[in-house]
């Protein structure tokens, strides 16, 4: 199943409400209301085992994202194959 949230705030609320939890999350960086770094931190608090692939067009966000608890970081635009490969890697490693 695939679901989506409009912004970071909605993502955190949705994640908290979902049972079972999503296997993997794709997190954007710049979003209205709550950005990806804050949302990542909050989701990791709810579930420290959550797997979050952070996507941003801004390479400088990499460090912040990984510090916040992102499992992986991809620079936009990302090729489909590369995205799938990363999802598989994240799922295999955990």
């Amino acid at each position, binding site marked *: 199943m695939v679901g989506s949230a409009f912004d970071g705030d909605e993502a955190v609320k949705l994640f908290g409400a979902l049972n079972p939890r999503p296997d993997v999350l794709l997190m954007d960086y710049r979003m209205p209301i709550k950005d990806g770094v804050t949302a990542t931190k909050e989701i990791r608090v709810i579930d420290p085992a959550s797997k979050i692939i952070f996507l941003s*067009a801004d390479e400088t966000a990499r460090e912040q994202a990984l510090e916040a608890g992102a499992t992986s970081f991809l620079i*936009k*635009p990302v090729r*489909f194959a590369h995205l799938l490969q990363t999802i598989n890697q994240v799922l295999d490693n955990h």
Partner: protein
Amino acid sequence: MSPLKETQKNQDRFSRLVDATGALVVGVDTQGCITLFNKRCQEVTGYSAEEVLGKNIVELFIPVDERPNLMVRFQNLVQGKSPAYSPEVHWITKSGEQRLMRWNNTFITDEAGEVVEIFGIGIDITDWKETQHALEETEAKYRSLFDSVPVGLYRTTPEGQIHDVNPALVEMLGFESKAELLKHKASEFYVHAEARKQFEALIIEAEVVRGFEAQFQRRDGEIIWIELNTRAIRDKNGDIYCYEGSLEDITKRKEAEIKLLAAHQRSEFLVDLMAHDLNNINQGIMMTLELIESDEQLPKHLREGLEASLNQVERSAELIANVKRFQSLETEPRRLSTRDLSPPFHAAVRAVERAFPNKQIFLSTNIQDQTYWVYSDGFLTELFFNILHNAAKMDRNPMVKIEVQASENTTNDFVKVEVQDQGPGVPDSEKNRIFNRYLNGAEGVRGSGIGLTLVQRILQRYGGQIWVEDRVAGDHTQGANFVVLLPRGERG
């Protein structure tokens, strides 16, 4: 003691006293003939007492042009009139030198009250006068400099009362005259009282303030930017009695700086906007194209078209990434250190392989860990990425062959890295231009992006060089040889 002996004793005491004094003591009779000439007089004039006694003082010592005035005074003295002031008179010494003396005169009279002898007690003020004159000259010279220099100069009390200003400052602050400006206190000119407080704190702490910038309000209300350089001056007791310094109108410079900062912020905003929003758009296009591409029914010619479009999107993303890197090159401070060439080089190779998933890149190199050390920073990966990316991009062949050879030249302290490809090469007419697309503003950024220009900029940062040669000399169509010189570092 007999009266005679008493008189002799007094005379003896008088002569000793007269000779012991550091002052000039001279006595003349009413005709002006010298009756007394003490030791100091002899030292200063070079004449002995015997040489001058009985001779006319005016004829012997006084320059011709000063004689008439002196004669008037002398006649007054002879008539028993006490002089009202101490005259300054030149004496000509035995060697012909003129010395300036200041005299106090007195006379003695006989029982009838007639003046019989006149005494002069004087000091030689020649040296003192010369020093004073030199001081006056120096003062005048500095005053003239103070008045003519185009920078505002001032002196204030520690409380900010203005003591002195030069014409440049009067004009800078929009006053008609110096007197008018001196009625104001320094603190009145500050637009922000906080700035004055800050300045006071600095001067109290350090006693010297350099390059302090503040906004001043001129008399006509106009606000200007000024730069202050001030130091505290202490008196002989060690107390600060004034501040003196210079004041420069830097409004034009400040406006230019503000404009530059605004332009910089604008460019940062635009680059950020482009990097973020355009790449989000690129992401959308890329995903859509890839979804279409995943349709197995898709005809071959459309698939080829899609693949070409995807390459274009990637090129667009790469261009945007390079623009971002350009910006960080401008803003990041330059901190070079000795680094192993191998890790950044091989990171660049891996990044290029990822960037061309549909090409096979065969790269051979002698660059191994701990072999070559260069002075560089974190941009080294970008540097090789762009050279290798350019080589892989230009080669139409799906099998891209690149050879990279490094060598050390100990005589000129560079590590030379040659990157040879088998792409279409670079015609002679383009060999210099490909590194400078950014600078050829009018022509704009053309076809192959700004990767090599970025390489050039990184090398400028390192003090290195790059140029391109033909892989096979004289035939550019056989591929290019990019030669990079990097400053050699010590083995880490």
